[in-house]
């Protein structure tokens, strides 16, 4: 089809912190400025802005997209907001790709921000409002419940052991030690995870990503601009997204169909036939330990029921066959919802350019994937990128 080639040419990121004093717009400004500086571009060269921020309830600012727009370089430019819960960060990149690939714009800033610390006593309370107001909210559910419920189904279906899944936390928090933005990089053991506080069995505290404040920005450009701006453009070769039913109790939670649908669309666009061989590096969405594995299966990067064995074999380690979450992921770097998803796209950008410093995976990866997930256990968003 008649898409134009689109490249990521620059990226910026703030530190991720539990409480940041900076406002949503100031956080967005820091990330955006860093992204523009990284490719020596300025705002006059930017045609449009794709912003992403997830539930307004965290920030406590109705229409938070507008609040972050100026910090995102959006003054008097076309600014459009993305809002699909945890899927927002990758969705913002897909949306930016659409703007440039369509020929409508030559350049696009993609900025994702979240400031969860504004919600008291704990941002988890804001999640109550995402459940159905009549048939579910009266039961006073929390998001932890549905993750724990889904993890239980995933484990039981495949016969997975909780202590094996805990290795995802060990890997990702370890990887995050080398990420300058990381909130929770740490050297931990499987025992530390199993001995951490039980939140909602089978989920322990160290199985969960933290709540965070932070922002990430990318600069996207059409081919003719990208070639002028940088010698190392990273091409977005495939995008896909899909939304499943909001009746989350009526789906079998052991498998994320919507992630498979999204991934297949992205693979088809990128001409990928055998994803497990052709994808060299991946950033699957990891708000919870099991989620990384759940998503790797949905992405066709691990067989259904086979992801834990690959994890145990070291397949997903930084020096494994398919390094996953080399950034440190949400579990290690942190989870400012929308920004966390875009952090994954930024990580693939840095890895494919060979600019990930101590996090750099060996073997000069040429093809990478970033994926996020969100809404009420229902949205999958995928981008495939090549050096």
């Amino acid at each position, binding site marked *: 089809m008649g898409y134009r080639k689109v490249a990521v040419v620059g990226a910026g990121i703030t530190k991720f912190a539990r*409480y940041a004093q900076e406002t949503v717009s100031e956080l967005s400004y820091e990330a955006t400025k860093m992204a523009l500086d990284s490719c020596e571009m300025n705002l006059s060269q930017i045609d449009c802005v794709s912003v992403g921020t997830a539930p307004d309830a965290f920030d406590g600012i109705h229409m938070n997209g507008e609040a972050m727009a100026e910090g995102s370089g959006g003054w008097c430019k076309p600014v459009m907001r993305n809002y699909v819960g945890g899927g927002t960060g990758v969705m913002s990149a897909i949306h930016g790709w659409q703007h440039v690939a369509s020929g409508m714009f030559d350049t696009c800033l993609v900025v994702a921000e979240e400031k969860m610390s504004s919600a008291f006593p*704990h941002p988890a309370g804001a999640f109550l409002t995402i459940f159905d107001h009549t*048939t579910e909210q009266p039961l006073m559910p929390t998001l932890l419940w549905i993750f724990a419920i889904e993890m239980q189904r995933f484990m039981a279906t495949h016969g997975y052991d909780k202590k094996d899944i805990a290795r995802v936390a060990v890997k990702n928090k370890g990887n995050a030690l080398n990420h300058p933005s990381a909130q929770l990089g740490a050297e931990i053991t499987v025992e530390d995870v199993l001995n951490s506080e039980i939140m909602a*069995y089978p989920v322990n505290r160290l199985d969960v990503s933290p709540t965070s404040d932070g922002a990430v920005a990318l600069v996207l450009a059409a081919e003719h601009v990208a070639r002028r701006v940088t010698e190392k453009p990273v091409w977005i070769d495939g995008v896909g997204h899909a939304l499943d039913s909001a009746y989350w*109790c009526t789906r079998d939670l052991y498998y994320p169909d919507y992630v498979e649908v999204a991934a297949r669309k992205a693979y088809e666009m990128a001409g990928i036939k055998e994803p497990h061989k052709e994808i060299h590096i991946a950033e699957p969405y990891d708000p919870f330990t099991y989620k990384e594995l759940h998503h790797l299966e949905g992405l066709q990067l691990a067989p259904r029921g086979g992801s834990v064995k690959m994890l145990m074999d070291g397949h997903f380690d930084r020096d494994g066959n398919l390094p996953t979450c080399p950034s440190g992921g949400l579990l290690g770097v942190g989870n400012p919802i929308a920004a966390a998803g875009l952090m994954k796209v930024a990580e693939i950008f840095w890895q494919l350019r060979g600019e990930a*410093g101590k996090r750099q995976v060996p073997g000069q990866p040429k093809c990478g994937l970033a994926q996020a997930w969100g809404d009420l256990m229902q949205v999958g968003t995928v981008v495939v990128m090549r050096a």
Partner: protein
Amino acid sequence: MDIKHQKKIDKTVTSLRKKDVTGGKVVTESWEPNLEYAWDNGPAISRYLAELKKGKLIGKRCNKCDRVLLPPRMFCEICWRPTDEWVYVEDTGTVNTFCISHVDWKAGRLNIKGGVRPFTPAVIEIDGASKGMGILHMIDKTNPKNIKMGMRVKAVWKPAEKREGSITDIEYFKPIGKKK
């Protein structure tokens, strides 16, 4: 984005601690929203609630895909057509999956050591609805350790005079014997 950029990254954010915020060390503005909503539930969920008040569970069938949808819906999202007849389903079902929660809705810790029973929410596949049609509800009156996937459960209803047309007219689900 090398680790050597650490100083540059550190400068992007002024990291605070919770007590800096709650203790007034930094200037904050707080607000308690005084918002109230009254949600219209539409014909399908309104009937669902009316039947709950009577102590019954009702779904709606789509005659094209032959699914009994629970909770009832006015249209089938797959066949993309209006649903057909109302169908009473049972108040018994099977535990599809569950968890044992030590936290409440705002991540507040329950006093488990003090003897508070953890919450045990579950996805329960209701008999008479199509396979996989689950609803979220609570399991109670059983040791959380004894809850198993595939376990048979039955609704425990509030007394008729206390029902108000809410999902909480079912107080919880309790374990029962195997399906006959």
